[in-house]
């Protein structure tokens, strides 16, 4: 590790979308820590065919993007502790979609949220087909119905006025 970071300075990669993704990241990091400890013990015992642990793309991108080195045992332990603490402090936005959101779309949405709203925000995904299209967002204290159903409902008065106009012409 080039230097110790404050937990608020960690940058989350676009693959880490929701809290389960972040928990999986912590679990994988703990597992890698355990395997590295085991490798170090085996190397001390004179074993020659010791295999280094394999990290996932998500963890690899996270370590690369934050310039972290997990070869040192103490730094790994510190990183795990910071991520566990960060887990409870990350802001979460609940987003309900009308259709199943694919991974790529979620990645784009999360990228926009982290660039525009908060750099460490996570998303809680929901599905509600009656929304037809758009999204229903719930932040800490507010809800934002950005669905097509809400837009049509808001414009129902316009439809009624158009019908009244047609009746007046008839």
């Amino acid at each position, binding site marked *: 590790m080039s230097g110790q970071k404050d937990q608020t300075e960690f940058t989350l990669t676009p693959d880490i979308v929701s809290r389960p993704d972040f928990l999986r990241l912590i679990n994988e990091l703990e597992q890698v820590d355990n395997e590295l400890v085991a490798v170090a013990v085996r190397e001390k015992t004179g074993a020659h065919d010791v295999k280094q642990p394999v990290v996932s793309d998500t963890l690899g991108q996270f370590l690369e993007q934050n310039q972290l080195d997990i070869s040192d045992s103490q730094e790994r332990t510190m990183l795990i502790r910071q991520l566990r603490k960060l887990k409870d402090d990350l802001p979460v936005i609940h987003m309900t979609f009308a259709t199943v959101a694919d991974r790529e779309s979620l990645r*784009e949405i999360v990228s926009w949220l982290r660039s525009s709203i908060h750099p460490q925000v996570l998303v809680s995904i929901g599905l509600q087909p009656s929304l037809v299209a758009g999204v229903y967002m719930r932040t800490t204290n507010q809800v934002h119905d950005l669905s097509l159903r809400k837009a049509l409902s808001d414009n129902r008065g316009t439809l009624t006025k158009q019908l009244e106009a047609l009746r007046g012409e008839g």
Partner: protein
Amino acid sequence: MALFKQKKSNKASDDNAALFDDELREELRQSAREYFQKIIDDNAAHFKQDLDITVAQVGEELKAYMTKQLDGTVSHINEQISKQLNHRMHEYDRVTQDAHDLAVQSLNRSAHALHEQYEQFNSALQKSIASQEAMMVAAFNDNKNQIAETKKAQDQALQSLERSVEVADKQSKRLTESYEKSISGQEKMLTDTFEESRARIEATKQAQESALDTLNQAAERLQQQYEQLDETLTKAVSDHKAALVGAFENNMAQIIEHYLLNAIGEQYDMRAQLPLIIKQMEQNKQTIVDDMKL
């Protein structure tokens, strides 16, 4: 599909409402008003005609009844007078016959006595013609006196008969007076009855006129109530129509909205929605940021 069925039904009711428009309702009201006025006029004419016929019939029946009663009374009085006259005449005949019989009997007795005396006188004359001539004259005188008495009795009987005739004349006069008085009383009673009947007919006529006035007033009130009801009904129909049109427009907006949701809902996948979502989030960006900072 149910929504489209509802739509057809609404359209049908709308067509019906258009069919029964104001002009048709006004024509129906005018037709009903004329029909109702015609029925009232016909009934009033029939009622007046029946009333005239009834009054004329009552007058004729009353006249016939009075004539019949008068004829019956006159015939009854005539019958009574005739009966009494016949009875009196019968009594006069009987008295006359008795007097005549008495006179005849007296004459017979006198004749018989005279015959006996004549026989006695003949016998006595046979016995003594010359000496007893005076006695025969005296006896003749006596017989003559008796004959005069008999004649006097006959005169008295005749006078009694004349008095009886006078009494009968007086009784006839009294009966005539009584008959005239009875006729005048009957006439007065009939006149009173006629006046009373006429007063009743006048009262009945006034009551009928009052009933006609009441009927006309009731018809006017009914007409006013009908107009008020028509106005209220028209207003209620108009309000109901406006409410139906409002509900129809609202329902139609919901139908269109539902149709659009069903039509385009499955046309958008997440990739297609993504620019719109990001655009809307961009519009609400500041609100979201402010909420996240709290």
